[in-house]
């Protein structure tokens, strides 16, 4: 295939060529970055929480009516969880101050000595009793669970530091990288030490925001019931397959205990709901980028079809002459395919620069990750295939131009 005549012909269609090159370049820049954003968001929203999501639900319980004392609230919480645990559809239940993917909550700095000024880590705090591990369904991989006699309660703005804590493997590793965390102390913004008595495999933090990414699995469990006037969460784990039944029965069982309470429907719920809420932005962004990429590729393909069709129409006579002089149909087909390859190739080269530039802007402005070369490769391949696919129909039409066309005047 001769490239020179193709270039010569393109020189006569400078404006059209430049426009297609530009369109392909811009499309590549946007599609590469969009695909990369989609991948990042999907990876983010499929991070595991480490808990038994299929059977879990969370009841957001707020206290109503006459203000209660700390002792009254604590007694009510004990009665509530006892009632929940008696439900036939419930495997276990525990009170807590938070749940994974809640979207924010209590976190505290941790040091290894009482005098330490710059903390070793930040960690999410989950309050609960000796049933919390079972209720969440997290796996204890070392040490032991809390004993019932270790569980206390904490009232409004009391600053209680528990003598024993359970930490996640990630946090244990961050604090004691040599793997010796069990039995060692940690200092949670206090001069009082807390001894690590257990390590769980995985438990995600309450926030999935970007700032939390560095601490995503740094969490700890404190043996405390939050007897605050505001309220708390009941984390309920249903027996397999009975979650919906448990979700219906649990509020009734609690109202039977005491009607002076409010369940906040916008907070908690089944874990499917919680997960959907936590990752709304990520899912939305992935959908938007997907739709824009798809429509963009369609429009670019249609643009190539349209413009090439015009060129074919314009050149019918020349094609006829070539055919009359002995060119075969596949030569004509090859001509248009090669022409498109050259144009798309030019567009792709320019597009790579634009794609990297756009990614740099996203990195600087929105602290996103630098794009991986794989996505540039996928984008380039996609557009080259798109160009060839789009040009095929007009090129076939051109190949069918009969040699006799050469003898006809326009």
């Amino acid at each position: 295939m001769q490239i020179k005549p193709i270039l010569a012909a393109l020189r006569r269609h400078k404006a059209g060529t430049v426009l297609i090159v530009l369109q392909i370049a811009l499309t590549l820049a946007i599609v590469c970055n969009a695909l990369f954003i989609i991948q990042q968001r999907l990876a983010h929203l499929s991070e595991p929480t480490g808990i038994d999501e299929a059977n879990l639900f969370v009841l957001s319980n707020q206290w109503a009516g006459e203000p209660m004392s700390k002792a009254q609230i604590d007694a009510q919480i004990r009665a509530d969880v006892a009632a929940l645990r008696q439900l036939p559809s419930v495997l276990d239940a525990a009170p807590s101050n938070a749940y994974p993917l809640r979207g924010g909550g209590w976190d505290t700095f941790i040091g290894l000595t009482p005098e330490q000024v710059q903390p070793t880590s930040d960690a999410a705090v989950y309050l609960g009793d000796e049933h919390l591990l079972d209720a969440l369904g997290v796996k204890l991989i070392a040490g032991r669970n809390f004993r019932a006699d270790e569980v206390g309660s904490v009232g409004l703005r009391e600053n209680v530091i528990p003598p024993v804590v359970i930490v996640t493997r990630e946090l244990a590793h961050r604090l004691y990288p040599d793997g010796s965390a069990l039995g060692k102390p940690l200092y949670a913004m206090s001069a009082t030490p807390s001894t690590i008595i257990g390590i769980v495999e995985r438990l995600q933090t309450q926030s999935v925001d970007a700032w939390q990414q560095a601490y995503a699995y740094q969490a700890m469990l404190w043996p405390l019931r939050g007897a605050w006037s505001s309220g708390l969460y009941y984390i309920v784990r249903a027996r397999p397959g009975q979650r919906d039944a448990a979700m219906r029965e649990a509020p009734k069982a609690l109202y039977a205990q005491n009607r002076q309470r409010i369940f906040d429907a916008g907070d908690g719920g089944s874990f499917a709901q919680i997960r959907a809420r936590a990752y709304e932005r990520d899912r939305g962004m992935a959908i938007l980028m997907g739709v824009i990429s798809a429509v963009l590729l369609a429009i670019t393909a249609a643009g190539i079809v349209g413009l090439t069709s015009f060129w074919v129409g314009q050149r019918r006579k020349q094609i006829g002459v070539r055919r009359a002089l002995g060119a075969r149909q596949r030569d004509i087909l090859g001509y248009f395919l090669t022409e498109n390859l050259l144009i798309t190739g030019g567009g792709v080269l320019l597009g790579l620069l634009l794609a990297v530039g756009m990614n740099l802007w996203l990195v600087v402005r929105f602290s996103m990750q630098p794009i991986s070369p794989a996505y540039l490769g996928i984008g380039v391949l996609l557009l080259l295939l798109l160009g060839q696919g789009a040009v095929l129909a007009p090129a076939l039409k051109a190949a069918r131009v009969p040699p006799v066309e050469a003898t006809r005047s326009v």
Partner: protein
Amino acid sequence: MLGYYFRLGLRSLRRNPALTALMVMAIGFGVAASMITYAVFRAVSGNPIPEKSERLFTPQIDSWGPQHNIHGEPPYALNYVDAMALMRAHQATRQTLLYPVWLSVSPEGSRGLPVGANGYAVYGDFFPMFDVPFLYGGRWSADDDQRHAAAVVLGEEFNQRLFGGANSVGREIVLGGHAFRIVGVTRHWNPRPRFFALWGSGGFAEPTDFYLPFTRAIDLKLDTAGNNSCRGQPDFSGWDGWLQSTCVWITPWVELDGDAQAAHYRRFLEGYAADQRRAGRFAWAPNVRLRNVVQWLDYQQVVPPESRIALVVALGFFVICLVNTIGLLLAKFMRRAGEIGVRRALGAPRRQIYAQYLLEAASVGLAGGVLGLLLTAAGMSGVGLLFEPQIARLARLDFSLVGLCLLAAVLATLAAAFYPAWRAAQVQPAWQLKSH
């Protein structure tokens, strides 16, 4: 003549229905994507109080020091001690402290279940400072603040829910087990973003249910429903210890008239911080900030990055659609070079060629705009899939957006058509006539 050109244009467009449809769809999709993302962006990035945003400031005082502050910036809120000191000094025209509270309420007369209500503990100046409109009654007085009065102002929606919208001023309401006397009911008021209580909230919540005196809320030990942030090794235990601690949870606002007063207030803050250093409370040089509403919105990054990225990508998409349209129009126009040659030879000036082809392009743009409008309307209902509900709800198709949509489509298409039309007008009559 223009009518004739319009008919000519339509005839030309009808000759290649597929191509015309492609151009109309490209413009339609491009303008719709831009409009939908712009509607969301406009909703989240607007100035919530344009008349006064230059005069309302939130003071920040670094009570944490260089070891604990936020990369050199003071904490986002004040602790109780500093907050009360600012109120006592009273160096501003108007001033308030605020924090969010959540209280339960039992609907009157019914034996139904209690419901939750969201409100703020504020000072009486809050209402005139932020131009809160009243339906019934009004603010509580500075005297009420002093007396820690059990007064409350309800929001219109909350008053509707509890009292069916009747004038409830003077009645009593029990919130969280405590009795309050209703002194006012606001009209619907929900500035978005909710600039005055950004810390710890997304800024796009439902309208506020009630406002009660800050001084009373402290007496009743109403805990904050918002953020509380501590540093170091807080060694307090209980409510009073918490109030005296360096934990921050109170947002202060001051109204200052003009640059002179703002400069004065800044000096006052520096002086206050220097006094605290002399008194031994702070062991570091004064580190204070005084940001107005717009600066505060910017600093707190209220506009979600998703919204900005989506807008930029959508605009890029629109540009590509336009490049696509330029190419197609160019091909379309140049195919009629012979026709143009004849017209020019018969004496048509270039101006007429421009008019004819730009009109043809404008009709494509208008059709694209109408399609874009339909797509935008359809997309608005799908916005909930793309953004969080409280933000998606803000985006709506109003009159200005409809106008902008059509205008953007037509103007962008005209701009895109300019080069093809110019090329058409440059056609040499002699050259075209010769080749035929």
